């Protein structure tokens, strides 16, 4: 999917002035309330703390401090690993759940009902995230809805430990991510030319072969974009990790907090704002790498 950039160049006229005029609010808003604070955050990361006071300057102290504590004391590496593990598995689960759904929406649901079905799928997104997390608490609590039901049915003897584990974190994240991932996947999948699928079958491919050789490769942009989206949101989210994951939720890696939770806690303790900024900058760096990799691999063509 390559965009043609060969637009003819024209001298600026009224139309292009209007264009800039229309763009201006977005540019100004983003610059003032996103880009500037972000740059400020990165800048504070290079400040130092003297007598409990942040002192502006340019020093790598915070980063040296952080990297020296990767495996000792604060053990940042474990939190980063936990974050990456949870983000990766959540994203993969999200794709496994949302991709078939998007395919069904685009190819099975009658066109007239597609918009309606899409709205239904996205509807949870319009309810408060925090409320949804607390709702999930009552469902997955040790004495919650799910455990009570499973025990009543005699499927389990003791309650499942879901809450305050990273499984809980993932449930919260998935509930948040699914509508967005479905939307991204649907928009890409519903633009796939059905003729290409028919052409594949016409050339002798079974339904399964058509899926692997044509449909899946053509869905690649949607899969990559929604995966990047899911991974970045999962890495940055704090609430699910605290409310459902219990802060230091257990995963197969062990009971470590998410990196975002670490940053959140350090900020709440507010002992060293410059170092917290440096930690946040580190997380942003990881996100940028993921985003860049995603954009690199999103092309349909080989």
């Amino acid at each position, binding site marked *: 999917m390559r965009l043609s950039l060969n637009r003819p160049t024209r001298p600026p006229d009224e139309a292009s002035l209007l264009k800039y005029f229309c763009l201006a609010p977005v540019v100004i808003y983003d610059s003032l309330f996103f880009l500037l604070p972000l740059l400020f955050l990165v800048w504070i990361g290079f400040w130092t703390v003297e007598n409990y006071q942040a002192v502006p300057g340019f020093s790598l102290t915070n980063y040296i401090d952080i990297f020296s504590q990767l495996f000792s004391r604060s053990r940042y590496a474990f939190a980063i690993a936990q974050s990456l593990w949870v983000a990766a598995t959540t994203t993969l689960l999200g794709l496994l759940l949302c991709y078939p759904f998007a395919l069904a929406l685009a190819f099975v649901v009658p066109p007239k009902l597609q918009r309606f079905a899409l709205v239904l799928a996205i509807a949870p997104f319009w309810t408060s995230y925090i409320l949804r997390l607390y709702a999930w608490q009552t469902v997955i609590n040790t004495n919650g809805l799910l455990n009570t039901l499973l025990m009543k049915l005699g499927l389990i003897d003791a309650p499942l430990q879901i809450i305050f584990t990273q499984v809980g974190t993932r449930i919260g994240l998935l509930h948040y991510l699914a509508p967005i991932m479905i939307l991204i996947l649907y928009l890409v999948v519903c633009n796939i030319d059905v003729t290409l699928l028919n052409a594949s079958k016409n*050339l002798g491919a079974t339904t399964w072969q058509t899926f692997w050789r044509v449909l899946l490769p053509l869905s690649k942009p949607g899969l990559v974009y929604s995966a990047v989206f899911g991974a970045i949101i999962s890495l940055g989210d704090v609430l699910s990790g605290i409310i459902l994951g219990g802060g230091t939720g257990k995963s197969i890696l062990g009971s470590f907090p998410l990196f975002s939770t670490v940053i959140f806690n350090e900020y709440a303790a507010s002992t060293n704002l410059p170092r917290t900024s440096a930690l946040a900058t580190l997380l942003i760096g990881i996100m940028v790498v993921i985003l860049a990799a995603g954009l690199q691999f999103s092309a349909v063509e080989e």
Partner: protein
Amino acid sequence: MNQPVPSTTMAPPEADPSPVISQDLELRQISKCYGQQQVLHTINLTVRQGEFVAIMGPSGCGKTTLLRIIAGLEGIAAGSVVLQGQEITQLPVNRRNTPMVWQNFALFPHLNVRKNIAFGLTLGSHRKGEVRQKVQRMAALMHLEELLDRRISELSGGQKQRVAIARALITEPPILLLDEPMSALDPHLRVRMQGELKRLQQSLEISFFYVTHNQNEAFSMADRIVVMNQGRIEQVGTPAEIYNQPATHFVAEFVGNNNLFDGKVTDVNGTIITVQCPQGKIHTLSDQPHTPGDNVTVVVPADRITLADQPGALGNTIQATLRGREFLGSQVIYLLETTAGYEVQVIRQEAFSQSLDIPIDAELYLSWRTQDTVLLGERS
């Protein structure tokens, strides 16, 4: 709607000279409905081995549906599809080996030219060396050797079409289905591709089932033309037959450059029949029985009419007023009004300078030979 619908406009079944498997494709009594609407009415058609058959008709006539039925992309209400003696009506799309060249080519954008061509071979258990060899041979045949490693987005329309044909032919199918493959090409390229396609079909000796709404394509390439209208076959014949002896009003009008005069038979003298039209008396020939009083239509091809300022001696003459003129290089198309509101077209191969002499609104005489006309029965 499962019982066969009697069809009067259906072409009579043709006598096959050799009853051995000389036909690649046979469509028997095919009917197709979309909901309440019947879109194909008991279609019978055979495609002989190595024959180039063009299905021609206006959009919505069912020609593409027929093609999709052969490929298995559409189900049918009744009838059967027989490919090389084997009934394939119930076979799924992927087991028919009836590859198609699609209107917009439908090349896989995520694969390069080589992988597009090889697609049909890589699905089964073909050895890699064999695949490479066959792709190489097909690329040579379609003049694509230089382009094998290109992306699809880097190809021109003509190149895309050659890749689409190569991809369809790689499994050595008994028949190739083509769905308006020229419509995405520019007119200049279209004429060149027509020649190439015909040569390819003749050298491969496989049948082509070519759907088009474009007469030029059908007439320049096909061995036989099938004219369809509203889900029925109007006429099946060689290009010359379709052109010279249109069987129905629809064919006479669709094939174009024909003037149709409606009238009543006034006199029958052997095979010579005289028809009284609003424009005047017209003589025509017919071996069908006619009696005075029959409502008929006389078809006069536009390129058989001569124009003169005096009544001609060609057997038929009517008077008309010149209303318009169009120069197409060596050809000139004249539009004339006979009776009020009725326009007649005349096409003459004429030098530019000579045609300038006739002023617009001049009273002229149109004349033509009786044997150049075709007589059709009453409009249905």
